[in-house]
């Protein structure tokens, strides 16, 4: 249960950063926090008390006492995608900084209608 609460709090903190913060890097950090929180939530949903990792080893071929592999597989790909998207966003941040000389989104946005 504590895992759920932790994950929700992470998501809430990330959302707060996105809505309130004006610094682009802070917004990126907020996005990353949301992604991490979601990953944690999904993996903790698949957990079974007393279960083992979903890997058959030589001694252990008991499928009943394993945690759910599906959330883990989904999270695995989500982490990689999240990192690559973050790299793209970071590239945009650098380009924006080079153009406007600031990281404040209010100043950057002044040119938009």
């Amino acid at each position, binding site marked *: 249960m504590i*895992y759920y609460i932790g994950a929700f709090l992470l998501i809430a903190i990330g959302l707060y950063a996105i809505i309130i913060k004006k610094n682009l890097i*802070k917004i990126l*950090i907020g996005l990353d926090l949301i992604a991490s929180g979601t990953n944690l939530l999904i993996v903790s949903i698949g*957990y079974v008390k007393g279960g083992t990792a979903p890997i058959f080893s030589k001694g252990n071929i008991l499928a009943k006492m394993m*945690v759910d592999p599906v959330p883990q597989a989904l*999270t695995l790909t989500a*982490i990689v995608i999240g990192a690559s998207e973050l790299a793209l966003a970071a590239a945009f941040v650098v380009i924006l900084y080079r153009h406007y000389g600031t*990281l404040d989104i209010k100043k950057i946005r002044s040119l938009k209608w």
Partner: protein
Amino acid sequence: MIYASWLLIIAMIVLAILSIEFKDLIAAVVAMGAVSLIISLLFLFLQAPDVAMAEASIGAALTMAIYIIVVRKTERREK
């Protein structure tokens, strides 16, 4: 084990709050990396070694490196 996870989650929340409240962006990024590292440990507790590995190598190492490069490239302090 259960207390360890309690402690880790509380530390994670505190670090997350710190990472969005630090005015020094490098410090914020380091706090963010610590959050990732703690999450990776939690994945290990949740019997997900694959995910833990991915989070440790990608979330805590590569992402943080990218953040630090970006901060170095732009400006260090949030005004």
